[in-house]
């Protein structure tokens, strides 16, 4: 069971109240981009067994999108933060680094 605290309304929401929105902070490569960049966006995404930064929507609650950082191996949740922030905030990076010493934030992957 996954419990995420919605940063918009503050409710502790169960996974079944939420709608998953996939990986967060991706650089979305559009039609005008070179083939290599588009191929990389489509097929060369990182998908580790470990730390993921994801988008979720509090669908059965306040209806707002937000970001969550969690580990898919341990199901530990490192924190949630508003959708308007375009990279993980420092406290969340610190919380992840404390548990996963090799982990580093990579822009756009």
């Amino acid at each position: 069971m996954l419990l995420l605290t919605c940063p918009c309304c503050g409710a502790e929401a169960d996974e079944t109240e939420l709608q998953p929105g996939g990986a967060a902070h991706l650089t979305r490569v559009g039609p005008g981009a070179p083939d290599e960049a588009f191929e990389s966006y489509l097929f060369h995404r990182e998908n580790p067994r470990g730390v993921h930064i994801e988008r979720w929507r509090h669908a059965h609650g306040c209806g707002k999108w937000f970001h969550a950082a969690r580990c898919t191996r341990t199901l530990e949740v490192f924190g949630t933060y508003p959708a308007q922030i375009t990279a993980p905030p420092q406290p969340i990076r610190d919380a992840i680094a404390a548990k996963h010493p090799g982990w580093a934030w990579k822009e756009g992957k």
Partner: protein
Amino acid sequence: MSDPVSALNGAAYDGVVRVEELGLRGMITLRGDHASVAVKNAATGVAGVDFPDALACDTVGERGLAWMSPDELLVLVPYAEADRAVAAMQAELAGTHSLVVNVSDARAMFRISGPAAREVLAKLCPVDLSPGAFGPGDFRRTRAAQVPVAFWMQADDAFALICFRSVAGYVFDLLKTAARPGGEIGYFPAGA
């Protein structure tokens, strides 16, 4: 002129708790910036109660304000007053970015009352309903089994629950099943 009727026409069930459909209630969706003085005044002026905190609701009788999301409120008024209340709020909010809609006929409201009310709702909703986590005045939007609902605690052993009118029969059946005699769990301490 046909008379308006509520979804289940006041159906009730007595099990380990009493489940009753509350009949016609005025419900108005108000979307706008909660920080705006105009939005606050329009809501509190019609409802006659204080502006609620996040995840809370403030009700007196059939009137009240419920915090639905960071930019949405539910205004509760007697059914007959809903249209007038909408007009009053729209007049007050002219020029302010906002939306006021009478949703009374799109919703159904239930009351779940009895010492086991927490337990009955906890069977259906993924919400921490322990006395330490959820008390009178707290409001929560969530799901009951497969449909969205919202509920708040009116007193120590009574909840009001709203759902869409189209699923009122489903929600009533859910509540009846959860409240069937023999299904008591007794997880929450009595009287809490």
